[in-house]
């Protein structure tokens, strides 16, 4: 299964070097704490949108979508749709108000809107947990990709990504990350689109064969056919769409990016750009899944479906063209790991720094240690934990499924907080906290049970349980919303007194609330 690995190795190293190089360029521009966190809030909409796209398109998008389309079938086409519609939901519900709130992070928003330090701490814990859960598959994916294309040990790829991310984040903070991320989007688009065009052209020349219509498990190319191991395809489809649509706004690295817009209107424009960029990208990954189903009826032993993108070119052409395409795809995949992981690291590190480290360090050192040092320390913590988890736990769940669980947790916790916080005057501190706790406990228990494979295999009731736990959003999100609303209505005295004033700030255009 080892291919001629030299080209792919070169591509991977080039991507890593380019990331570090552009990061170093940003380092010379980033001077203040504000630069560090949110690029001084002076990033233009197209640049910011490219950066958001670069950060958002993770291992799950680049490798995982094709892997799931390959192994599960048409129903998985909904994954990229959900990833994109998540931004539409974010646009119409929270984009401009969140930018106008002027907060750096989700915990900042919680404090600003509900004025409760304890609620802030709860939100911080959730942001860190979701960030770590999302970082883990990025590191695992890196190991997987490196093993597939070079035959090297997975530990090397995992370490490489963790080290590059740590270097570029700790060195340059957000400004360098904005430039790096914007570059990564276009790199990834090119890396997935160009090989796709070549492969489709080859497929057309080979007489446009179709995937086997009836395989032992069922028809591959038909929707809702429960092609492979998935039971209850209809429920799973709807629940996954819900998790992706509502979870996007709760992802830590997504929201941090919105604070780099100069104002609310720019935040909307940026989101619109992002939707265009994502739609463009997501046309391509399913192409790989479908072509692989035609060309590779069965995977070599010991390979996971997540690596089909990297196996496809050599299976279709072989020779140096195949090696070249593999190298391009491997470079793109590494760009995906690096960009998502650095975006997540920046935001998780920002939260760790602001809420856990900075005050303590300042007290302990009497203010001698500058903020940038504590941010660097926080980014070490932010990378170390998921790195350890990715190295110690052997991956049992597909990359895109792990990411979908992170989305489900975000959708059941931070999404109710943000949506109710932005639109509902009567949200109380207790209501918000109850929603966060109930949604968080339910969804993370479901995720944990899925990870460790607690519910045994088997049909009937066990099958339903497994499905409900693997795609929990359909029941955890409504429960979290309901709890938050009911408790808020029951505790009108814990509604913050200046809720109406805060809402004015969130919704009124800047030129009004600034008094300009």
């Amino acid at each position, binding site marked *: 299964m080892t291919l001629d690995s030299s080209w792919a190795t070169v591509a991977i190293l080039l991507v890593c070097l380019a990331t570090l190089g552009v990061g170093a360029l940003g380092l010379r521009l980033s001077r203040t704490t504000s630069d560090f966190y949110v690029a001084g809030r002076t990033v233009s909409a197209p640049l910011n949108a490219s950066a958001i796209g670069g950060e958002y398109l993770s291992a799950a998008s680049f490798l995982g979508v094709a892997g799931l389309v390959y192994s599960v079938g048409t129903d998985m086409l909904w994954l990229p749709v959900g990833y994109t519609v998540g931004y539409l939901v974010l646009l119409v519900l929270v984009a401009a108000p969140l930018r106008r709130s002027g907060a750096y992070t989700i915990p900042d928003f919680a404090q600003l809107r509900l004025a409760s330090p304890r609620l802030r701490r709860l939100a911080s814990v959730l942001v860190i947990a979701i960030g770590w859960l999302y970082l883990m598959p990025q590191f695992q994916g890196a190991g997987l990709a490196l093993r597939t294309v070079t035959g090297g040990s997975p530990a090397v790829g995992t370490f490489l990504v963790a080290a590059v991310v740590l270097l570029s984040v700790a060195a340059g903070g957000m400004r360098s990350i904005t430039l790096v991320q914007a570059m990564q989007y276009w790199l990834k688009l090119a890396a997935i689109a160009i090989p796709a065009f070549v492969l489709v052209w080859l497929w057309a020349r080979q007489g446009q064969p179709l995937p086997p219509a009836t395989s032992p498990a069922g028809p591959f190319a038909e929707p809702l056919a429960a092609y492979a191991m998935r039971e209850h395809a209809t429920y799973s489809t709807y629940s996954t769409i819900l998790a992706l649509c509502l979870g996007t706004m709760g992802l830590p690295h997504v929201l941090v990016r919105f604070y780099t817009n100069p104002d609310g209107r720019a935040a909307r424009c940026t989101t619109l750009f992002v939707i265009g960029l994502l739609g463009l990208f997501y046309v391509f990954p399913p192409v790989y899944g479908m072509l692989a189903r035609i060309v590779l009826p069965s995977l070599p032993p010991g390979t996971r479906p997540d690596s089909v993108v990297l196996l496809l070119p050599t299976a279709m052409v072989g020779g140096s063209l195949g090696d070249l395409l593999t190298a391009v795809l491997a470079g793109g995949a590494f760009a995906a790991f690096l960009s998502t992981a650095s975006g997540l690291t920046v935001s998780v590190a920002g939260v760790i720094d602001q809420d856990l480290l900075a005050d303590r360090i300042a007290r302990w050192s009497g203010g001698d240690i500058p903020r940038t040092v504590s941010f660097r320390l926080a980014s070490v913590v932010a990378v170390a934990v998921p790195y350890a988890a990715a190295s110690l736990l052997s991956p049992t769940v597909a990359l895109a499924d792990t990411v979908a669980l992170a989305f489900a947790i975000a959708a059941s916790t931070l999404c109710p907080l943000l949506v109710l916080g932005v639109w509902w005057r009567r949200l109380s501190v207790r209501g918000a906290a109850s929603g966060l706790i109930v949604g968080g406990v339910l969804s993370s228990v479901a995720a944990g049970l899925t990870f460790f494979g607690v519910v045994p295999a088997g049909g009937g009731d066990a099958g339903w349980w497994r499905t409900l736990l693997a795609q929990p959003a359909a029941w955890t999100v409504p429960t979290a919303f309901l709890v938050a609303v009911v408790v808020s209505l029951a505790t009108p005295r814990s509604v913050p007194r200046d809720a109406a004033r805060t809402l*004015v700030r969130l919704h009124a255009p800047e030129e009004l609330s600034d008094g300009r």
Partner: protein
Amino acid sequence: MTEPTTPRPAPTPPRRVRITSPRRGARRRAERRPGSVELTEQTGLGEVYLTALLRAQLRLSLAVLLGVVGMLAGLPAVFLLLPDARSAMVGPVPLAWVVVGVAVYPVVYAAARLHVRQAERIEREFTDLVRR
């Protein structure tokens, strides 16, 4: 107060002196900020303004969401109810792939664009109303 004085012919009228502030470049305080004051000071009128803005924006957001969600939720339902649609082909590619894999994205983009335009229109109208 003072005894009436006979109008005397004024001596040479005082020279007009132009007095300027040394800080002419400083930003002048806004003379009137009617609407925004109502809003931030939470008067009854401000409450009315805020409610109107929130409602208009929320109505727009929900309309866009319902449209898109209706479309997305409808697609699996169509495939569930019409078995023929599942196996239909467009040229060499299954219909479901063309619809879910490609055609969805321009529609989502169009919906987002519509929302951005309308939301900005609502904000413009609100600004005009409050500034008046």
